């Protein structure tokens, strides 16, 4: 079990929030949106893998 997963995702979230805010302050709204979407996609990639593993183990343990 990797506990770093939470820190990874929260870290990506903080970095993306800071970058998006910097970009939107300097008047580049589109790039701020883009960076938010990119961060979202990366996090979803990490998470879907874990969720798939979780569902697999639920299926094997409960014989569903």
């Amino acid at each position: 079990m990797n506990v770093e997963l939470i820190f990874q995702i929260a870290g990506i979230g903080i970095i993306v929030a800071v970058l998006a805010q910097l970009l939107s302050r300097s008047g580049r709204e589109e790039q701020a949106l883009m960076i938010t979407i990119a961060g979202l996609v990366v996090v979803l990639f990490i998470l879907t893998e874990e969720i798939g593993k979780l569902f697999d183990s639920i299926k094997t343990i409960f014989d569903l």
Partner: protein
Amino acid sequence: MTDIVKIGAIAVCSALLISLLRPNSPVFAGLTALAAAVLMTFFALDSLSNIFDSFSALFETGGINYDYCKSILKVIAVAYFTEITSALCRDAGESGIASKLELCGKVSVLVMTLPTVTELLRVITEALALI
């Protein structure tokens, strides 16, 4: 014992991180909550599989058909699963979806238990016919 301390540490850390993230990027706060939920469910599942092994051993020594035990375990699985996922939906602020999910969970539990109930009714009618 050490496991529950670890899980508590994970829960507190993720709660702090989520409250840190919420004002700036609520989407990432939700995703972090999802990650925390997945990790903690993994911890619970590890011990649950041991419990189920001893459950099945108990059923076998009691001489009870293992199929009944299996159906109980399946119902428990569906209940846990709907509980976890509806809590996640509620965290994301979608209590409407969460309540529909709970409804679906209840219906699927009913569908799973119906064969056992009909079996029970069949046994009862057979017993009544014997009288």
